[in-house]
C-alpha cells in the first residue's frame, strides 16, 4: 500500500510466524509507507502484537519461535545473515504497552541508548537528552528534575519518557505496541498529538485496541483477525466504507 508519494519504509511479504508449531501469523503482506502512521487493529489474540514485534525482531528472544516469508526495511530483508540485529533495533525503535522506564534518573534513561553505543561526551549527551525530551513534549515538565528517578513520573509522563528514550538513538521507524493501554485519557491525548508530530520525521506503526485512536492518529489502518490480515487501506476508507464484512462488523462494534 502506498499513497502515491511515499514508498514503503518497512513491509512484510507472506510473513508467517510460529510459536512452536502454532502459526500466530498466517501469510501477512503489509507495507507501511515512510513518514506515515500505520495502525493495526483487531480483536485480542489476532496477532497484532506478534506482528509488530517481528518488525524489529523482538521475538528473536522468545524461545521456540520461527519466521517464514520476508520483512523488508528499505527493501532489505531484516533476516538476511548480514543484517546485524543490534543495528536493526537501533533503526527500528519500540515503545511498549506498559511504560518501562529503567530504575535510573530521567537523564540516564534517555542517555542509555547513546551510552551503550559508546558516547561519553557529556555535553553531547545533554544536548541529545534535551532534544529527545522536547521531541516527546516532556522537556518543560522535567527540565528542572533530570536527576530524579524516572519512577517518580506519572504513567503518562513515563510513557513519553520511553518515547524520548527511543528518539535519542535516532531511529527511522518507531513501533508502538498499544502505547496508551495503561494510561489515562488526558495522557493518551498528549501521546496521540505526539504521534502526529513524529510522523514528520519518522515512520510510525502503532498497534491499538482502541478504534477511535486508530481513526485519530493513523493514515492507514490494517485490520487483523486470527493471524490474518483481513483488510488494509486508507484509515478513512476502513472506517467509513470497508471492503470486508468482517472489518465492517469490527469497526462498527459488532464484535471484538
Amino acid at each position, binding site marked *: 500500500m502506498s499513497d502515491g508519494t511515499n514508498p514503503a519504509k518497512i513491509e512484510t511479504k507472506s510473513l508467517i510466524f510460529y510459536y512452536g508449531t502454532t502459526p500466530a501469523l498466517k501469510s501477512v503482506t503489509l507495507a507501511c509507507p515512510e513518514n506515515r502512521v500505520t495502525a493495526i487493529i483487531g480483536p485480542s489474540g489476532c496477532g497484532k502484537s506478534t506482528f509488530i514485534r517481528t518488525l*524489529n525482531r*523482538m521475538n528473536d*528472544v522468545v*524461545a521456540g519461535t520461527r519466521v517464514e516469508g520476508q520483512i523488508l526495511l528499505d527493501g532489505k530483508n531484516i533476516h538476511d545473515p548480514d543484517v546485524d540485529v*543490534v*543495528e536493526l*533495533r*537501533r533503526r527500528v*525503535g*519500540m515503545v*511498549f504497552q*506498559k511504560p*518501562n522506564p*529503567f*530504575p535510573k534518573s530521567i537523564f540516564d534513561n534517555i542517555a*542509555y*541508548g547513546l*551510552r*551503550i*553505543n559508546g558516547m561519553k561526551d557529556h555535553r553531547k549527551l545533554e544536548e541529545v537528552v534535551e532534544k529527545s525530551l522536547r521531541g516527546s513534549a516532556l522537556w518543560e515538565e522535567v527540565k528542572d528534575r533530570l536527576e530524579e*528517578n524516572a519512577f517518580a513520573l506519572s504513567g503518562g509522563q513515563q510513557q513519553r519518557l*520511553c518515547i524520548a*528514550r*527511543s528518539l535519542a*538513538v535516532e531511529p527511522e521507524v518507531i513501533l508502538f505496541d498499544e502505547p496508551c493501554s495503561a494510561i489515562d485519557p488526558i495522557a493518551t491525548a498528549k501521546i496521540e498529538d505526539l504521534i502526529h508530530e513524529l510522523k514528520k520525521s519518522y515512520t510510525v506503526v502503532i498497534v491499538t485496541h482502541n478504534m477511535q485512536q486508530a481513526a485519530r492518529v493513523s493514515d492507514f489502518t490494517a485490520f487483523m483477525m486470527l493471524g490474518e490480515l483481513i483488510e488494509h487501506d486508507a484509515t478513512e476508507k476502513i472506517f467509513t466504507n470497508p471492503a470486508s464484512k468482517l472489518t465492517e462488523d469490527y469497526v462498527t462494534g459488532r464484535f471484538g
Partner: protein
Amino acid sequence: MKQATRRKIAQALGFFFLRVCLYLVLAVLLLFLYDIGRKGGGAISWQFLTQAPRKGMTQGGIFPAIFGTFLVTVITAILAVPLGMCSAIYLNEYATQGRLTRLIRLSIRNLSGVPSIVYGLFGVILFVNIMRFGTSVLSAGLTLGLMTLPWTITASEEALKTVPNSYREGSLALGATKWQSIRTNVLPYAVPGMLTGTVLGLARAAGETAPILFTGAAFFLPYLPKSLGDQFMALPYHLYIMATQHHQIEQVRPIAYGTALVLIALVLGMNMTAIVIRFRLRRKRR
C-alpha cells in the same frame, strides 16, 4: 447474619492457629539461643577469642579454630561466588530454555539436597586423592565450595528472575547487545539479591562439619596453617570434639558452649552482613 458470624469465627480461629505456629517456632529458637548464651557466655573473654587451646584443650582459647573457619570460608567463597553467579547468569539469561536446561536446573536443585557427608567423601576422592591437595585447608575449602555452589546458583537465578523482563526488552529495543543489556540493565538490579543468597550459603558452609571432617580439619594443632596445604582447626569441628570426643568432657563443657556461641555469632554476623549489603545497594539504586 448467622452465616457471617460463622465466617468471622472461622477466620479468627484460622489466624489464631497461624499465630500459635509462629510463636512456637520463635519460642524454640529463643530458648535455644538463651540456653547457649547462658552456658557459653561465661566462657567468652578476650583470652578465649585470641589464644590457642592449652593443656589438652582444657584451657586457653579457640583462636586457631576461629582463624581456620575464617580461612576455609574465604576459599569456599573464592570458588563458589564467581562460579555460582556466572553459572546462574548463563543459565537464566543465555541458555535456550528447554528440556536440557530443565534437567540441569533439576540436578542443581537435587545437589543442594545431597547430605553434606557425601560431599565430604567426594572431596576426599577428588581433592585429597586425585588432585593430590592432601588433607588441607585447600581441599576442605574446595569441598565446601562444591557444596555451596547449588545454593549460590539457585539464589542467584532467583535474584535474576526478579528483574522485570521489560528492562531487558527495553534496552534490547534501543540497540543494546544482549551482554550490554545484562550488564547495564539486569545485573545492577540482581546483584544485591545474588549477594544475599550467596552470603547465606557461605554462612551455612562455615557451620558445616561433615565436609571438612576428612578433607582437612584437625583435632588439635599447636600452630596456625601457614599455607593452603596445611591442616586447620575449625569452629564446628572443635565444637563436635569438645562436646563428644574429649576425655574430660564435663570439664570442657563451658568451652564447648563458648565455641557454639562464637559459631552462632559468626553465622549471625554473616547473615547480618548480607542484609546490610542488600540494604545499601538498594538504597544506592534509588
